[in-house]
């Protein structure tokens, strides 16, 4: 937590720390990201490597990979999303509870990558809103860790209390994708 978001003066307030609700909520959220590995192609292998001992994603507090969307709050789309699979990706995204975030891992998930094809969705952001994109084909585990830390930074800047109030229809952020309130 950044020092600017807390106030602590033991002489005045004793054991009390003063802070903002946003800062506390974000602090809790960003240090317990539970990713849902949407492993669709070779990026998933690098994703698995990130969870292994050598790269060890648990150093950053996001090692609890959950294969049920109900228990996860960050979908890591790792791999090529075909049009046939797009439906599944969207449904799993819809099944995740709010708040939720999406990481598009690698060239395919970000843009379709080398698959300029009749069968491949040209970027998963056509169907779900993406928070962080990772370049690479596939990206190294360090790149994934970097993206997850960037996602943590992003979570840290969110207006979480404001987001608890149901969103208006015109506050939809990402093109083409209507995020549920």
């Amino acid at each position, binding site marked *: 937590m950044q020092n600017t978001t807390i106030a602590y003066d033991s002489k005045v307030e004793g054991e009390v720390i003063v802070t903002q609700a946003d800062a506390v909520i974000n602090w809790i959220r960003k240090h317990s990201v539970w990713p849902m590995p949407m492993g669709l192609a070779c990026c998933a292998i690098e994703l698995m490597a990130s969870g292994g001992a050598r790269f060890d994603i648990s150093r950053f507090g996001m090692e609890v990979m959950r294969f049920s969307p109900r228990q996860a709050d960050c979908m890591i789309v790792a791999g090529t999303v075909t*049009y*046939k699979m*797009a*439906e599944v990706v*969207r*449904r799993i995204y819809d099944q995740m509870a709010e708040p939720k975030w999406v990481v598009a891992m690698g060239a395919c998930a970000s843009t*379709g990558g080398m698959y*300029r*094809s*009749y*069968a*491949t*969705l*040209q970027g998963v952001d*056509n*169907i*779900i809103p993406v928070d962080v994109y990772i370049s690479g084909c596939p990206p190294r585990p360090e790149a994934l860790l970097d993206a997850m830390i960037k996602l943590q930074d992003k979570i840290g800047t969110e207006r979480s209390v404001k987001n608890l109030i149901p969103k208006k229809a015109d506050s939809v952020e990402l093109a*083409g*994708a*209507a995020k549920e309130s």
Partner: protein
Amino acid sequence: MTTSDLALLKERFETLTERASSDHTALNCPADQLVELCTALRDDFGYDMLVDVTAVDWDAQSPRFTGIYHFLSTTKHEYLRVAADCADDINPSLPSLSAVFASANWHERETYDLMGIRYEGHPDLTRILMWDAYPYHPLRKDFPLAGIEVPLPAADVAETTGASVLPAPMMGGPFVSSADGPMSQTEPRAKDQSWNEKKVKPCGE
């Protein structure tokens, strides 16, 4: 395939002709004799494994579609290619080999999916790669490489996201050979079928 085996096979199937091939023995077989021939290949000639089922789209020629079968003999360690022309150019069909070789089942579904050849007698001739409602057969010559715009397979997802299956032309590509003339003069060249801010989208695709 040894010459004696080949002679024996030709004796049994008089309509068989040899097919030009740069690697393995290849045979042309009429579609109506295909099942009989493949059964004989499996039972009497040792070709016990159907490795691949595919097809060729000859575009403007007639017959337009040729089904291709690759067999492997695991005892003689030899490959054999069998080709069968489809009589109908509009609705091509071939007899299914799935009763003879179990591996033909999914291979024929794939060939049906991508080339549109119907395999008569197949137990479950549905698409295997593209979704069931997809209206085209993408490996046919008249299918543009970039694809054709169609709705997403799931209507509700298409409605929520506004996404659809869009043509994705390859920037600078495709890198293909013109396929006419000697090979030395038909190196693959960039055709650049893509469209962007500077290049307008070609009509009719």
